[in-house]
């Protein structure tokens, strides 16, 4: 073992109480950093996955019709005092099959599903309710929103003349599986559907409005023969959704909205959480660094004589400096090791203690290795940096001064 390491290790070992205290401090610091990172990410992931279980990551649709003002000939100043927004018509995506194939090939895109949707009314007996007609290809749509997992009654089957509806709507209409309902679309066409299933998506508004049926049925109801109004897709990294949406919009000229754009509040909450976590982390690192630095400064003063004698025996100031830098790095490294263990225990415990409303664990009991690695890197670096000032002080010590006052 090199001389500098022998000295650093021995100084730490013989510094018993000081070493134990500063290592404990570093350990707790590292554990809390890993723990809150894991907790926040678990929280965000579970919130995001719950939100995204009922919606696509990116939705592509026809851009809104914009009013085209008619201008007077001879452009002299005032053009129009008031522009009336246009009524939005129900339109199919132009050449949707081509768009569909194009977006399916983009990087990050996992699943794609064409959708024909519009609004209408559902009738049963005297009851009538405003609804959203959702025309889907079941095997494709199932990959975007797992309706099959969310059924409360019946099965997920949308053959011709069949529909799956939300539980709130079923309740409002007093209908159950096997009952028939009449649906009138905004295009004034109607048809009768048999309810094959009832679902609960966990979002009241969707449960109250969604009527899922085969795409062909929806196309004829909405008078969009062969047409598709939306293309839903999922991406492999949910936080890449916005960039994928931007890419699609510029490629196709269509409107593409990511879940982030739709759920701005959720995203803001995420951002605030992330910032809070980061702030806490920075202060923890600072506290750990100050702790290591203060212990090493004291150690340098205590070892003044030894540093002097080591210098007299031919140790260069640079090597003296390394002895203290290594001590800082070692404290950081051991704190990282012990802290990772402690964090693993804490996260394991939290996976039992913290539960979601449905009883499932809020965070998983294991931590990604990346957290350990980054926390270890930060701890070692913090230890080294914290040791810089004490180490320089040790290196600058005048051996004569140190020896003289024996």
């Amino acid at each position: 073992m090199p001389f500098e390491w022998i000295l650093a290790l021995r100084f730490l070992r013989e510094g018993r109480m000081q070493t134990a205290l500063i290592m404990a401090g570093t350990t707790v610091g590292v554990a809390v950093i890993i723990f809150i990172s894991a907790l926040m990410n678990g929280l965000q992931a579970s919130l995001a996955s719950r939100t995204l279980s009922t919606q696509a990551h990116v939705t592509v649709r026809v851009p809104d019709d914009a009013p085209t003002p008619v201008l007077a000939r001879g452009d002299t100043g005032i053009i129009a005092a008031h522009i009336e927004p246009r009524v939005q018509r129900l339109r199919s995506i132009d050449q949707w099959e081509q768009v569909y194939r194009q977006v399916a090939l983009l990087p990050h895109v996992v699943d794609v599903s064409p959708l024909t949707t519009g609004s209408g009314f559902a009738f049963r007996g005297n009851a009538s309710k405003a609804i959203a007609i959702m025309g889907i290809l079941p095997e494709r749509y199932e990959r975007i929103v797992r309706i099959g997992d969310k059924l409360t009654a019946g099965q997920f089957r949308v053959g011709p003349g069949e529909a799956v509806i939300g539980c709130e709507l079923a309740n409002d209409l007093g209908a159950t599986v096997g009952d028939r309902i009449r649906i009138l679309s905004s295009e004034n066409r109607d048809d009768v559907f048999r309810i094959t299933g009832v679902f609960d998506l966990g979002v009241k508004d969707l449960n109250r409005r969604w009527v899922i049926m085969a795409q062909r049925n929806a196309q004829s109801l909405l008078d969009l023969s062969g047409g598709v109004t939306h293309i839903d897709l999922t991406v492999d990294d949910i936080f890449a959704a916005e960039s994928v949406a931007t890419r699609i919009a510029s490629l196709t000229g269509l409107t593409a909205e990511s879940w982030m754009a739709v759920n701005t509040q959720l995203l803001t909450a995420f951002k605030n959480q992330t910032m809070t976590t980061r702030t806490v982390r920075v202060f923890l690192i600072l506290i750990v660094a100050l702790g290591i630095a203060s212990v090493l400064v004291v150690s340098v003063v205590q070892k003044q004589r030894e540093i002097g004698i080591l210098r007299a025996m031919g140790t260069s100031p640079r090597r003296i400096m390394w002895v203290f830098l290594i001590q800082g790095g070692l404290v950081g490294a051991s704190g990282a090791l012990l802290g990772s263990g402690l964090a693993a225990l804490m996260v394991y415990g939290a996976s039992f203690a913290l539960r979601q409303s449905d009883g499932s664990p809020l965070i998983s009991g294991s931590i990604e290795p990346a957290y350990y690695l980054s926390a270890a890197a930060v701890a070692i670096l913090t230890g080294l940096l914290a040791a810089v000032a004490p180490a320089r002080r040790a290196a600058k010590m005048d051996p004569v001064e140190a020896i003289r006052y024996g």
Partner: protein
Amino acid sequence: MAEEDDILRLEAVRKAYNVATPIETEVLHGIDMALHRGEFAALIGPSGSGKSTLLHLIGLLERPTAGRILIAGREIDALDEAGMTELRGRTLGFVFQFHHLLPEFTALENVMMPTLIDQGRATRAMRERARWLLGKVGLADALDKKPSALSGGMQQRVAIARSLAMNPPLVLADEPTGNLDSHTADDIFALLREFNREEGSAFLIVTHDARLAAGCDRRIELMDGRILASPSAQA
């Protein structure tokens, strides 16, 4: 006597503190002296005569304000900080009044320390030499004891063994028996003499003890920063 036979040579060495300030004080006023290889010399003089300062200059712990210092034929003025550190490590052994052992390390490790500093890593040969040296000073049974578990005399023996670890041509001893009882002091002195004979290292011993000084081959007397008398053994 030819110059190459001198392990140490000082020519018109001056040392002043607080140079170019109103409180400038010159401690050494032009020292000329030489020490031959293998010589056993005492440096004597009252407190404040400049003994410690002279020892620090020779020990390469400080630089002179003026004059030349040659150690083992090397002009120290030509050396940078790193060169001084290296020369100090390889050529000089130190014995201090307050032994200055490293309390974290055992007697054996303390004796290995100068060689460890020089070579960077512990080797078997290093360990063997340290063991042999400790045997020579009568501490074969205390190899693994920490300094705190040894008496003052034993600690000073470890320090002597340590000063010889690199087999240096010149050993500087600053009041090596200063805080020991006379019986122990005699033992320590005998030990230094023995190493001087057997290993051939030159010794320069700063001491207050006239009895001890009388036992040296040569006495260099310092008074008010000047050398009064330094009859060479051969003179």
